[in-house]
């Protein structure tokens, strides 16, 4: 073997393989059984998959999840880039801005959910009071749109700073020579952004998009604490749906839906990765 570095990576890979393999295979094996806690498992082949794929509640949760995740990406990525572009490049303001941006990232998921619940509670919350000024009855417990949009905006507030910080680090790494060349060529601000900044940010944007997409699929604590998945099932995302099935001890169904859930994340992440690594590749060489 020419590259001995692989030898040093093998222990870490072995630990990772075992720690990922055992839970994953347990879930897959569960998904092939009718298995309820306390009962003897029965092998049923793909019956759980058929049940999951024909379950309208699962399909609704899946569509809702995809709408949420795509919406999150459509808002958080451009907003994160804009914030990063507006941040000072040097001086004392840099540290202040970075600390302010980092604060939402330090708040745990469940605390974010509780904050949202306090702010949106119809009797004492600030947000319903604010909307009342415009004669709009804001109520996350009754109105599905209010509940969904609250969780959406909550996620934007919580995680846009991550994209902004990644983009800021990417911007700092772009040599000034590129901008000088663009100025000499008479490029407008938009063209400089389009043909210099954006292609140079590609690698951090790939990380940002993949992280946010995969994380948005894991949203759980916020809808659970804010609305419990309601009203109706308006904020029951995939993770909440799967968890409820596992809580009801239907482990075979939960295993099958978990596998489908994982598979969707892998497929979309792979598509995003390929798109972002190949689009406009010639521009940055």
């Amino acid at each position, binding site marked *: 073997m020419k590259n001995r570095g692989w030898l040093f990576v093998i222990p870490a890979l072995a630990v990772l393989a075992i720690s990922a393999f*055992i839970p994953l*295979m*347990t879930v*897959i*094996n*569960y998904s*092939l*059984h009718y*298995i309820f806690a306390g009962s003897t*498992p029965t*092998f049923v*082949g*793909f*019956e759980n*998959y*058929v049940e999951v*794929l*024909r379950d309208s509640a699962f399909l609704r949760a899946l569509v809702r999840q995809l709408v949420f995740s795509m919406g999150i990406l459509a808002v958080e990525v451009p907003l994160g880039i804009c914030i990063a572009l507006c941040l000072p490049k040097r001086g004392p303001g840099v540290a202040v801005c970075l600390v302010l941006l980092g604060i939402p990232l330090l708040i745990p998921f469940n605390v974010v959910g509780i904050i949202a619940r306090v702010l949106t509670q119809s009797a004492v919350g600030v947000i319903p009071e604010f909307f009342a000024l415009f004669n709009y009855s804001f109520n996350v417990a009754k109105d599905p749109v209010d509940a969904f949009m609250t969780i959406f905006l909550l996620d934007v507030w919580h995680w846009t700073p991550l994209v902004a910080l990644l983009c800021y680090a990417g911007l700092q790494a772009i040599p000034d020579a590129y901008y000088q060349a663009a100025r000499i060529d008479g490029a407008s601000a938009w063209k400089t952004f389009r043909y210099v900044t954006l292609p140079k940010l590609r690698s951090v944007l790939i990380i940002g998009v993949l992280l946010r997409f995969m994380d948005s699929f894991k949203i759980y604590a916020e809808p659970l604490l804010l609305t419990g998945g309601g009203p109706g099932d308006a904020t029951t995302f995939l993770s909440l749906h799967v968890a409820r099935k596992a809580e009801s001890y239907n482990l075979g169904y939960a295993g099958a839906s978990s596998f*489908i859930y994982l*598979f969707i994340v*892998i*497929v979309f992440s*792979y598509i995003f990765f*390929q798109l972002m690594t*190949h689009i406009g590749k010639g521009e940055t060489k």
Partner: protein
Amino acid sequence: MWDWIISNTSWMYWTWQSGLAIGGLFAAIAFMGIWDAVSPSVARKGFFPISTTRGDRFFIGILSLITVFLLWLGIVGSTALWVPLVISVAWFAVEGVWG
């Protein structure tokens, strides 16, 4: 040793079907690894809109196989599973050679 492994992994509810599937997958990955070490793959452009290596096409093939099975299970049910298997194998061969 084998008995010890069996008794200590019984909680995972292994079946021969899942063992065969995962064993086949690992064997295929190992084979691809050895093949690549012996004869390194070069990315090339086929009918996919991106240039792909052997490993990429293998990965896309696995994803396609699972997609075909899930679509079949959702639309038709768990009968005549040889149909999605034939479709998957045919697609695997097509995209492996011309993809």
